[in-house]
C-alpha cells in the first residue's frame, strides 16, 4: 500500500511550509470576518457559525503544521544527532534543514493558536 505521507524531497522550499500555512490561515480568518462584518451578513448567517467554520479551518491548519513538523522531524533523523549541524556534508545540510523546519513548525503552531484566541472571546462584529 502506498503511504500518504510524502517522500523526503531535496528542496529549500519545505522550510517555508509551516509559516505559509500560518499565512493562509491568517488570510482566511481575516477575510472571512471582514466580509461578514462589512457586508452585514449577520441576518443570514449567525456569527457563531462563522466561528465554528473558522474553528474547523484552524484545526485543519494545525493538523497541516503538525504534519510538516513530523516530516521535519523525520528529515532531522528523529533527533538522532544534535545541532549545530555545521559539517561540510550533505547529511549535515539535510539535518540542518530538518531542524530549522521543525523549529519553524513550532513557531507557526503557536502563532496559529494565538490567532484562534480572539475567536473564542469575541462574539460579534462590534467595532
Amino acid at each position, binding site marked *: 500500500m502506498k503511504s500518504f505521507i510524502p517522500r523526503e524531497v531535496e528542496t529549500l522550499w519545505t522550510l517555508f511550509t509551516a509559516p505559509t500555512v500560518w499565512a493562509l490561515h491568517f488570510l482566511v480568518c481575516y477575510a472571512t470576518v471582514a466580509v461578514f462584518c462589512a457586508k452585514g451578513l449577520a441576518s443570514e448567517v449567525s456569527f457563531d457559525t462563522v466561528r465554528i467554520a473558522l474553528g474547523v479551518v484552524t484545526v485543519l491548519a494545525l493538523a497541516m503544521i503538525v504534519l510538516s513538523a513530523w516530516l521535519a522531524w523525520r528529515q532531522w533523523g528523529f533527533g538522532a544527532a544534535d545541532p549545530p549541524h555545521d559539517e561540510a556534508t550533505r547529511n549535515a*545540510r539535510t539535518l540542518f534543514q530538518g531542524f530549522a523546519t521543525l523549529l519553524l513548525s513550532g513557531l507557526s503552531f503557536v502563532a496559529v493558536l494565538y490567532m484562534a*484566541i480572539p475567536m473564542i472571546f469575541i462574539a460579534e462584529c462590534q467595532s
Partner: protein
Amino acid sequence: MTMELGNFSPEERAAQEERLRKVWETPKGIRYWTSVNNSEIGLWYGVTAFAFMLFAGLLGLLMRLQLAVPENDFISAELFNQAFTLHGTVMMFLFAVPIFEAVAIFLLPSMLGARELPFPRLSAFGFWSFLIGGVFVCGSIFFNAAPNAGWFMYPPLATDDEYAGIGADIWLLGLSFIEVASIAAAVEIIVGIMKCRAPGMRINLMPMFAWYLLIVAGMILFAFPPLIAGDILFEMERMFDWPFFDATRGGDPLLWQHLFWIFGHPEVYIIFLPAIALMAMIVPTFSQRPIVGYSWIVLAAVGTGFLSFGLWVHHMFTTGLPQISLAFFSAASEAVAIPTGVQIFVFIATMLAGRVIFSVPMLFGAGGLIIFVIGGLTGVMVALVPFDWQAHDTYFIVAHLHYVLIGGMLFPVVAGIYYYFPFVTGKKLSDAWGRTAFWLMFVGFNVTFFPMHFSGLRGMPRRVFTYPEDIGWDWFNLISSIGAFVFAAGVATFVIDIFRPKQQPAWRDLNPWNSGTLEWTNDPAESWGMRSVPIITSRYPLWDQPNLQADIEAGRFYLPDAKSGKRETLVTSVLDAKPIQCLRVGGVSYVTIIAAIALGGVFIALTFKLWITTIVFAIITFIAIIHWLWNGTAPIPEVPEIDVGLGETLPIYVSGPASVGWWAMFITMVGDGTAFASLIFGYFFYWTIHDDFTTIANGPGVLWPVAALVLYVIAWVLTLLARELNEKGPRGARLALTAALAVSIAASFAGLAGPYLHEMDPTSHVYPAIVWIVAIWTVTHGIVGAIMQGYCLARSITGRMTAEYDQDIRNVALYWHFMAFTAVVTFAVLGLFPLVST
C-alpha cells in the same frame, strides 16, 4: 574533499594577476562613474544614503528647536509640516532601506566567495535611480514644495490639491521610482545568495548575514508592490480625479491605509533584520566563537519575515474596524515578539559562551540592543488595542518608533561601519573617537526620546508645530531638545572620525578583528574581490580551514585567471553549492546611467504634468533598456565550456530554471504579481463597502472581457509552442512568435474595449475607476509581453537566439505564465464576477 589544488609558479601568478586586474579594472577619470563593480556601487550607495540621513537629521534638529519652548515661532507651521514629512520619508525610504541594499551589494560577493553579484548593471541602475529620485524628493524643500502631509500621506488630506500641493506628487512619483530600485536590489540579492555561493558553501554553512538578507529580499517582493499599487491609485486620483479615496463618489480613504501599511509594517522588519544581520556577524567575532543556535537564527529570520505581514492593521486600531479584526492583528503582533526575542537571546548566549572583547562595534551593538529592547517592550504595549487607543498619534508612539528604529537599525549600522571600515579602506577607525561618539549618541538618544513617553502619555499629539505652556509638556520638550543636540554631537563625532585623515597602518593586516568569515580574505586594494574562488567547508572558514588565505591569494582555487578577458564568476547549486556554471557578468557601461536618467525624467516630468516631455523620456528609457538587453544579456559565447581551474570545465551559457536570468524573471514577476493582487484586493475592498457595487454604474459587459481572456490564453499557448518549436529549428518558432504577437495585440484591444465601449466614466464613481485601472494594468502587461515576443523574434532572425542558446524564449515563456494568470484573473473578475455578485 580530496581535490588537487592548483599550483602556479610566481611568474604564472603574476601573469594571472595582470589579466585579472585588467578585466576588473575600475575606469579612471570621468568614466569612473560608469563603473558597475559591486565595491564601487556599494560604496556610492552607502555614502549617498548616509548623506540623506544627515540631511534628515538636520530636519529633526529644526523640529526640536521649534518644540524646545511653548508658543515658539522659530519656523512656520508650513515649514514644520514639510520638515516632519521629509524627515520621516527620507529616513525610511532614502536611508534605512537603501543603506541595507548598499551593505548587501558591497559585502555579499566577498562573504559568499563570489567575484560579483549576478547582475552588476542592475545594481548600478538601481543606484542611479535612487540618487536621482532621492535628490528630487529632498530638493523640494528648498522650493517650499516638499510633501507636507506626513510620511504616510493619508487621504483625504493628501489628495486635497489646495492643501497638499505638488509635494504629494513629488512624494508619490519620487518614491515609486525608488521602490523600483529596491525591487531591483531584491532580485540581485536573492539570485546572488541562492546561486553565487562559493563551492561547498552549503545552506547550513551560509553566513548568517546571507540568511537574513535572503529573507529580507523576499519580504521586499511582497511588501513594496502593494505600495506601488497604492501609489498608482493615489496618483490617478490626484492627476485625473479618479475617485479611489473620495468617499463622496464611492471611494474610501481606508484602502490607502491598508495598502500603505501592508507595505509599512513589513518595512520595519525589512529595516531591522539586515541590521541584526550585521550583529550576527559582529557578535561571534568579538566573542571569538561560532554563533550559538545557528538554526534558531534561521527560525527567527524566517519567522519574523512571515509574521511581519500579519501586523499591518495595528497601525489602524482607531479606524473603526470590527474588534475581532483588530484582535487578529493584535495576536500576530504579540506573536512576532517570539522570534524577535529569540535573536536577542542567541546573541546573549553567544556572548556568555565566549570571551567578549568590548570594542567599539560591540559597544554600539550592545547599546543598540538595549535601546531596541525598550522599544520592543513599548511595542508589546501598543500592540494591545485598549492601550493603543490611548497612545495612538501621541508622542508615546514617536518615542516607541525611534527606540525601535534607532536601536534596531542606526546603532547596529554604525557598529557595522566601525567593524567593516578596515574591510573597505584597509584602516581602522579610532577607538577613542568611537567611544566618545558612542556615549554621546547613547546618552543623547535616551535624553531625547525617553521623555517623549511621558509627554505622549500626557496627551501631546505628534506633528503639532507648537503647544501652549503650562499643560505639562514644557519640561519634557526642553529636555528632549537638549538631548537631540547631544545626540547630534555624537553623530558628528562619528562623521568626523570617518573623514579625518588617517595614518597607514604599519603592516598589511587584512583581518584586523580576527574574524572567521570569508570576506576578510579580500584585499581592498584590488577590485577583483576573491583572488581565486575557494572551496568552503566551514561556517567560519578563516578559523577552521588552515592556509585558506594563502591558498586563495596564490590562486590555488577556482577561476584563478581571466584568459577570456571577460568578467567571470561561479554559479553553484542552491542546496549544496556544487559548481554548475561559469557566469559572465556585465562590465562598465553608460547604458545603466542613461536608462536611470531617462526613467527619472519620466517620473519628474509626470510630477509637473509635462506630457510631451514624459513621452520623450519614456521613449528614451525604452530604447536604452532594449539596447542594454540586446547587447548585454544572453550573448552566445565563443566556446560552450571553459576551464575554471582545478581540472574542471563548466558551461558558460545555460538556460531555463538553471540560469540566473530565469530566476530574475521569476522573482520580478512574483513582485509584479503582488502589486496586481493588491489592485484586485482594492476591487473587492470596494465591493465589501457597497451593497450594489457592480450595478452602481455601467459595467464592462461580458463579451469583451471574455474575448480578452481567451485571446490572452491563446497568446500564452502560442508562446509556449514557440519555445518548444525553437528546439527543433528557427522556422516554426518564428511563425509561432509572429502569430503570438498578433494575438497579443488583438487581446490588448479587446481588454480595453469593454470599459471603453460601455462608456464607463472613471471620474464618476469608484466602480468604473477600479475597472479601468485593473484593465489598464493587464493590458500594459500584455503590451510588454508583445514586445518580448517581438524581441525573441528579432533575436531569432539575427541569429542571437538559436535552438541551443534559447535563454530569451525561455524567460519570455516564464513571463507569459504570469501574464496568462494575470489576464485570467483580471477578466474573470471584471467580466464574470458582476454576474454572480448580484
